[in-house]
């Protein structure tokens, strides 16, 4: 018995040593070899995954790791040099560029696709269109009942992504703060009763179950379990449903860039990959996911 306990302690020591070694090894992973990583936006992730798979089919010696915890996470990883490509659904902030420069990282921006941000509700919800000002009032907590926007007498449950998400930031600037409208107000914030969810699919799932819910998501995440809302820029503008066409001709107001950031201009295998993404074959994949090609 005594003997067994000792053995276990030794085992634990060895295990810890191995763990430390493993962490140390992964820590110095860089761009060497034909492996690189893409991390960041949950929105861009389906597209990056598709591109990575197709590229790895063409070039079997390459291995690409894609993950999608959120745009802010990707940019933070680029600043900390723990990823090769940061995918983002929002522009990098000046403060982030400053932080990167201080660490010797030089963010280089590449526009890879565009996305229309859909506003979705439960299929039983009779409301079919909203203005940006109404959406702003819903998300700041001024409008709390569906009756106030022409629906049933039900409280509104506003769902949002958490602060890791580029969609969170884009929606805050363009919808909550109404950027580009005369009513633009930078002091507006998400109201205290907005639910912040860790992933886009969690929000879609809750919206599909909850007749009181409203949520926003990249077009690629919209399923037929939820109803997409037509959005009006102002009360006088026509109501437009999000689609590839209305995003290309910019009649849909909530269109945003999907971006890759690298440290300096990409070279070697990463340049090959990005060239593929921007090639006609790569841009055709953009349509498959439901986003808008930019080339």
């Amino acid at each position: 018995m005594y003997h067994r306990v000792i053995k276990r302690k030794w085992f634990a020591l060895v295990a810890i040593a191995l763990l430390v070694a493993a962490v140390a090894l992964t820590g110095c992973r860089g761009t060497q070899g034909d492996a690189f990583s893409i991390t960041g936006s949950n929105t861009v992730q389906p597209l990056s995954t598709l591109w990575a798979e197709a590229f790895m089919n063409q070039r079997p010696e390459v291995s690409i790791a894609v993950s999608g915890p959120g745009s802010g996470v990707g940019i933070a990883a680029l600043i900390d040099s723990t990823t090769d490509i940061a995918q983002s659904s929002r522009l990098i902030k000046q403060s982030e560029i400053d932080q990167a420069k201080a660490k010797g990282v030089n963010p280089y921006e590449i526009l890879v696709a565009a996305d229309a941000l859909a506003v979705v509700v439960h299929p039983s919800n009779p409301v079919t269109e909203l203005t940006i000002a109404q959406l702003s009032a819903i998300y700041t907590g001024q409008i709390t009942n569906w009756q106030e926007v022409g629906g049933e007498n039900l409280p509104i449950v506003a769902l949002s992504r958490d602060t890791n998400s580029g969609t969170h930031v884009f929606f805050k600037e363009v919808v909550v703060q109404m950027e580009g409208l005369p009513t633009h107000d930078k002091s507006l914030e998400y109201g205290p009763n907005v639910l912040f969810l860790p992933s886009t699919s969690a929000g879609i799932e809750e919206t599909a179950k909850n007749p009181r819910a409203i949520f926003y998501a990249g077009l690629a995440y919209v399923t037929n379990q939820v109803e997409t809302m037509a959005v009006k820029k102002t009360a006088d503008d026509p109501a437009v449903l999000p689609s590839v066409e209305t995003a290309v001709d910019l009649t849909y107001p909530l269109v945003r860039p999907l971006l890759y950031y690298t440290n300096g201009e990409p070279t070697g295998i990463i340049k090959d990959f990005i060239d593929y993404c921007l090639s006609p074959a790569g841009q055709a994949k953009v349509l498959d996911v439901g986003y808008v090609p930019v080339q």
Partner: protein
Amino acid sequence: MGERVIEGGIFLASLLAIVVLLGIVALLLRQGLPIFSYTPPWAFMFGTRWYPVSEPPTFGITPFFVATLWVTAVATAVAVPVGVGCAAYLSEVARPAIRETVKPVIELLAGLPSVVMGFIGLLLLSPLIQSMFNLNTGLCGLAAGIMLSLMSLPIIVTVSEDALRAIPDEFRQAAYALGATKWEVVRHVSIPAALSGIAAAIMLGIGRAIGETMTVLMIAGGALAVPASPTEPMMPMTSAIASGIGNAVRGGLQYQALFAIGLLLFVMTLAVNLIADRVLERQKRKFAR
């Protein structure tokens, strides 16, 4: 000779644990304390606005703190009666055959990954709670607390049952000899005698509930308002850290603020453990007399 090598090994292992613990405390202090030069401690603790990515950012953690209290309170309120009752049944009433089957099954509950508990809460419990209480959303502190209670149940049952079984049988025999019924023996003899162990079990359960992250991240709702009741969506401290840390740049204000929340969580679990220690000590002294 072999003895000395072994002793050295054990000494190193225990030293490692202490070094790691001190290292973590030092890290939390080093990364977390600088935030207080931006937001004074009282504004950080009692501020109700948390907007880390706004310009300028605001850091007030009252919503998270209150959410953690609610979720832990719900988890404790559900898990303690059920857990202690279950332990009393297993040790005092159940036939050995039943005990030998039920106890491993309960312990199996501890092996369920927290993300699975989150899924179950999301798919089964939250719609149920929403329709039962006619809520706006089933993603709320109550749902999270109930799932957490299931996760702390195995600890409470196992540790309480061990404590109950450790009571000398003479205690029970004496009570029966005085004409006590089974219920009276459990209520007035076994549970009071094992109270120190049961208290430790409860504290361990509370510690588990305070620190659990994945489940609450998935089903507590994540709203930033200070929750006035457990049926509101809320964001406990652990989810606040988990949902913000990926986005925070190392050394930035948000990063420091999240470490400060971690520091507070650490202090809270430390306090729970110290209180548990005190209770145990007092019980021991009482029975030593």
